[in-house]
């Protein structure tokens, strides 16, 4: 009898074990376990306005429809964070021009970061460094960093990769995107490539009021908007108007309205460059004169991207323009354009009407078609 109970117990234990193993993630998958899934990469053509330059795409990460979709899913999936509560999109939301509209972002542990999340609109054109200090040289490199940042997603890539391998859907998506043969070939590099591909499609629609004006619809601006435009780009002479120079386009120029260069734009009055609370670009270059410099963000959709500056110190565009009209503090590495703000105005100072016109022009940069583009929204909703 005792023998019989023993045999039943052992049998039940074995059966339970077998069943349990069946439900467990496949920790040791067969080589080639994804080969039966078709891999037919279809080139993805980035949709952009005709008057925008071609989007830079690295040769080792060609755009494909499946990789873009994988990247989109990863971008919005909290699977990347240690406690599965936050994703890239937690700090980069479409309606906020892919910012979180917070002064600084809060990570999964409730810790506040040092800097504001940057807008991702037209980020594909940012080839002069990413983040406020330019510490990443490519979207592929940038996409790797928030996952392991302790004040952001606070995870490790080995853990993320394990979760992706064990996931019911992702191995198939990686196969379709990159042609991997088995789930063990999922890597953080491939995940980053996919996310970079998704970020490359975040391009303006070209339907903002500003774009329509630039494309020849010159009546679309009212007088105030036109004045703001002419001061921003310093083109008042073309209309025979006597308007001051606002110096904006020197830093926020080009079709994307950013040169992606680094400036001390006159935010803080410091006695020496070492006194900056945030040393900015210096943390990357180690160059003393880069202390307090930050990358210029795009001004496209700026009305949707509040608050402003690397630390979100300004809540409104009016505050931003007001600060620039003060022309900096004379700090050693401030950009020489700053003191020339308002050049040719009485006393070389912008009037309240001038400032209002500039703000009004900045609102013409709003591109609601972009933020509502269904192709870039959260695929889980």
């Amino acid at each position: 009898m005792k023998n019989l109970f023993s045999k039943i117990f052992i049998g039940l234990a074995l059966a339970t074990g077998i069943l349990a193993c069946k439900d467990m993630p496949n920790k040791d998958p067969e080589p080639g376990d994804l080969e039966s899934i078709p891999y037919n990469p279809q080139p993805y053509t980035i949709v952009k306005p005709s008057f925008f330059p071609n989007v830079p795409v690295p040769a080792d990460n060609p755009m494909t429809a499946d990789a873009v979709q994988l990247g989109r899913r990863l971008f919005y999936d909290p699977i990347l964070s240690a406690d599965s509560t936050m994703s890239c999109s937690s700090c980069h939301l479409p309606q906020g021009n892919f910012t979180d509209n917070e002064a600084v972002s809060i990570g999964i542990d409730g810790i506040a970061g040092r800097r504001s999340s940057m807008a991702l609109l037209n980020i594909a054109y940012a080839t002069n460094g990413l983040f406020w200090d330019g510490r990443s040289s490519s979207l592929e490199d940038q996409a790797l960093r928030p996952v392991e940042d302790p004040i952001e997603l606070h995870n490790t890539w080995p853990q993320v990769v394990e979760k992706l391998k064990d996931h019911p859907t992702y191995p198939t998506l990686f196969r379709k995107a990159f042609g991997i043969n088995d789930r063990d070939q999922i890597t953080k590099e491939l995940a980053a490539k996919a996310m970079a591909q998704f970020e490359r499609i975040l391009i303006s629609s070209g339907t903002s009021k500003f774009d329509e004006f630039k494309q020849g619809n010159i009546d679309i601006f009212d007088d105030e908007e036109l004045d703001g435009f002419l001061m921003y780009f310093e083109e008042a002479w073309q209309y025979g108007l006597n308007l001051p120079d606002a110096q904006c386009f020197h830093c926020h120029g080009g079709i994307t309205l950013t040169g992606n260069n680094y400036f001390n734009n006159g935010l803080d009055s410091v006695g020496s460059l070492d006194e900056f609370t945030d040393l900015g670009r210096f943390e990357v270059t180690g160059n003393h004169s880069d202390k307090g410099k930050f990358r210029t963000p795009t001004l496209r959709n700026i009305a949707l991207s509040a608050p402003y500056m690397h630390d979100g110190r300004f809540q409104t565009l009016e505050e931003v323009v007001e600060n620039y009209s003060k022309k900096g503090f004379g700090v050693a590495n401030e950009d020489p354009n700053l003191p020339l703000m308002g050049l040719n105005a009485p006393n070389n100072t912008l009037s309240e009407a001038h400032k209002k016109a500039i703000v009004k022009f900045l609102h013409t940069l709003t591109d609601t078609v972009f933020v509502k583009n269904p192709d870039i929204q959260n695929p889980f909703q």
Partner: protein
Amino acid sequence: MKKLTFFFALLALAFLPACHEHDEGPTADFTVTFKSNFAGEQLTKYKNYPYGLAGIPLQFTRFSTYLSDIELIKADGSSHRLAEIEYVDFTPENASTDLSATPAITYKNVPEGEYTGLRIGYGVKPSLNAKDPADFDNNHPLAKEIEYWSGWNSYIFTKIEGKADSENNGSLDISLLYHCGSDAVYKVYAFATPIHVHAGEPGIAVNFDLEKIFTMDDGSYYDIVTNFYTSNNPNDIIVAQVLMHNFEKATTVVQ
């Protein structure tokens, strides 16, 4: 048959000049190093340089320039073009020091031989300046959006930015903003100097001395206190003309 032979002979003669243009003589790599100076000293950002007779402190924060049709000149007047367009940035944003950069560009397959000089177009030549950044691939020098000004329909040929202490009292009270552009200020200058192009021989250095860019033909210093910026109006190019003109005497070519 005679007619056929004559025909082929004519055909061969017709192609002969074309073949001659592609002279298959020995070639070599040839490096041109671009340098920026102030009074002969390698330019350093944010460094005070004494300027003018009063020696007022002058700093530079940015210096970049486009150069077109950089050509080696032969004694017979013909030339070999090294580059159609280059963007030379002496103050790049990824530098770990304020010492100016010295970009060195190596040109391949340059015909070996003795040259008598170098010709440079200062700025973007009109045929290219008629285009805009969207016309070029991303890595092309002319794809840089921030170096194009739509108001002028022109690239910004040269950017020189800085500050000056006009009262010499420790306060950098003058911002200097010289952005020169538009076809009217495009200049081509040639510099006569022996240049030997042979494998293993050093290339050349092209030096731009900023002090001389602000020195007038009569030796006086340009009044940077009064003329501290270039006009936005392309019909008012007086300041830009002065600076682009002065590039000639500011340039030295040495091997």
